[in-house]
């Protein structure tokens, strides 16, 4: 007989935590620079699986952070240290500012982790190139930390970062550490000043690519930053014989739900929150860089 109500797929119970936040307590806040801060959050749930859920994330994934009565925003997962979840946030508006004003001990809500991260394990045995621009490219920082800690799995690691002014650079000490102890090639550029300082160049992050030492036929590129920068970098990579199938990038759109339901984050046929935010470049090529998508 033909019962047509489609109920067979309804047996899966919804992952409730994805729709409803889990409480987290602010333990510590690092003021990285003016308007830029890192939250260290303790998951307060009585259910141990919630802690596991947040501790087990992929680099490049994000959480939805909500502050009561104000709003909810997507923020990349920076890391997990000493049982605390880390998010680095720039204060740009309503919610990010309210989060900045939180005092230790206050609680927020967390949903996640969501989305696709960098497929780092696929890059074993290759040169890794990280290209970022702007402030605090958190999803890439987490991936760099991992790659440096597991250097033996990769060949060369090249880190390129562009900012407007050199003091905009987050985690200056981290870059020094990656260069000196991590044995990475670190190249930094400031677009609006010529700081006569070792390792700094005037210009755009794309110009740094020419100075980067890597094997174009055995490399994997991870990018994150303004789309205009990523487009320029793609062009330059092409010039340097890097196949576009080696490129991965992280995108940003308006997120309301984070789990493929609200429709806000669409880019062509993709939902950036669930199919991304990290995409394999060939996948999104027809839409990427096209204004209005």
């Amino acid at each position, binding site marked *: *007989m033909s019962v047509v*109500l489609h109920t067979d797929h309804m047996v899966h119970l919804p992952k409730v935590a994805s729709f*409803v936040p889990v409480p987290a307590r602010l333990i510590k806040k690092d003021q990285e620079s003016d308007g830029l801060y890192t939250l260290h959050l303790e998951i307060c749930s009585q259910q141990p699986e919630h802690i596991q859920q947040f501790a087990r994330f992929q680099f490049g994934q994000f959480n939805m952070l909500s502050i*009561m009565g104000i709003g909810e925003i997507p923020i990349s997962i920076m890391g997990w240290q000493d049982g605390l979840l880390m998010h680095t946030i720039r204060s740009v508006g309503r919610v990010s500012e309210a989060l900045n004003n939180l005092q230790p001990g*206050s*609680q927020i809500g967390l949903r996640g982790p969501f989305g696709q991260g960098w497929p780092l394990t696929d890059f074993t045995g290759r040169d890794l190139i990280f290209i970022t621009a702007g402030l605090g490219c958190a999803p890439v920082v987490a991936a760099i930390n991992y790659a440096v800690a597991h250097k033996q799995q990769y060949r060369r690691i090249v880190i390129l970062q562009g900012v407007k002014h050199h003091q905009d650079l987050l985690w200056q000490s981290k870059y020094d550490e990656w260069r000196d102890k991590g044995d990475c090639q670190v190249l930094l550029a400031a677009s609006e000043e010529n700081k006569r300082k070792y390792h700094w160049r005037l210009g755009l992050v794309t110009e740094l690519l020419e100075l980067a030492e890597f094997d174009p036929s055995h490399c994997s590129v991870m990018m994150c930053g303004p789309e205009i920068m990523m487009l320029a970098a793609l062009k330059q990579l092409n010039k340097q014989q890097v196949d576009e199938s080696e490129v991965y990038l992280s995108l940003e759109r308006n997120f*309301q739900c984070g789990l493929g339901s*609200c*429709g806000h984050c669409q880019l062509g046929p993709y939902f950036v929150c669930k199919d991304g935010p990290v995409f394999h470049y060939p996948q999104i090529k027809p839409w990427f860089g096209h204004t209005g998508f």
Partner: protein
Amino acid sequence: MRKQYLPKDSLPALYEALRKRGYKIIAPHVHDGAIVFSEQHSPDTLPWGWQEETEPGRYQLQHTERDNKSENPARAFAWNNGPQGIKPWLFKPKQEMWRAEETENGLRFRQPDYAAEPIAFIGARACDLAALNLQDKHFIQGHYPDPFYSAQRQQLLLVAVNCQRSASTCFCTSTGDGPEALFGYDLLLDELDEGFLIEAKSEVGDEILVELALELPLELPLDACEQSLLEQAEQQLQQAAQQQRKMPSDSELRLLQNKLDDQRWHEIAEKCLACGNCTLVCPTCFCSKQESNSEKLGEVSLASVQTFHPEQSDNNDVASQVRVWDSCFSEQHSHIAGKNIRPEISQRYRQWLLHKLLMWQEQFGRSGCVGCGRCISWCPVGIDLVEEANLLLRSELDQAVEQATGERP
């Protein structure tokens, strides 16, 4: 499955049978000059003898009886559709997602009790069922099934109706979704002059029919019914064939991929008000945004809200998160810090049309348009989606014809 004749005056028995099983009855009725759905207690409130007259940017009800009272007694389902489909009953215009409360151990989040209640929806059309199927794909068959939609969906009983005429804005034959309801319902009505042919398609539907039969010994002039139904079917086919609008096929619509930079987007934008009506009446659109409410804070200014510590509050509920319908025509829809991805109306119209007709295919395996024509009737400036799709594809379609026939059309 069981098929019976249901005289008009047995409709109350059907309502009663549904009520006895615990269903709240949602049925069509006339309200504010349109056919809308809400809880109804008696078949008397069905839109007896009403029909819509509609064209781009216009929707008006008129009484059928005035024209041909004698041969065509008033029918309950002579109309085709109103601004709503089944959508508002499952994907609700407003849905509380969670509530935060203060406990001794700090914040606690909980999902509100679903307001899922057994609903019998009377009067779903083929296009509505097709749209429901698409919304099921989005809200239930995705990675994270939506708990609110899913719960209500399981409590839904559908009494479908076969359309016997097409409104002038209907184009379901070209999308393959109508006019005949073929799947997705529990009971199906075919309206005849003096009654209905009622057919069960699910177990519950069948049980209800059994109950009806038990309670009223029905005469079953089925042969006569089938005959008049056959005549009606023919009429229906003719009607359907006369549908003036024709949406290109899914494979033709794929050619829209070549039209991302078409000049036409700018021409439409000169008319389009970006009001979002087309997305709100569309039975398949699923966009929503979330709003954070802090009821206990009430009128406290934003400045103090920003330093608000839930720990210091004395009321239990500190906040709630509410999901409300949204539209890709709204300015905030594509806003990201300091920037709007689609500042131009041309880009927003393009998002709407391309999502519906092109990207939907990749996301859900078919176009997101089921041919109901609502977006055409309810657009205040009469923009016609089918016309736009055909205009955009004109050169591509001509080329296809040329290749197939060797002739220039």
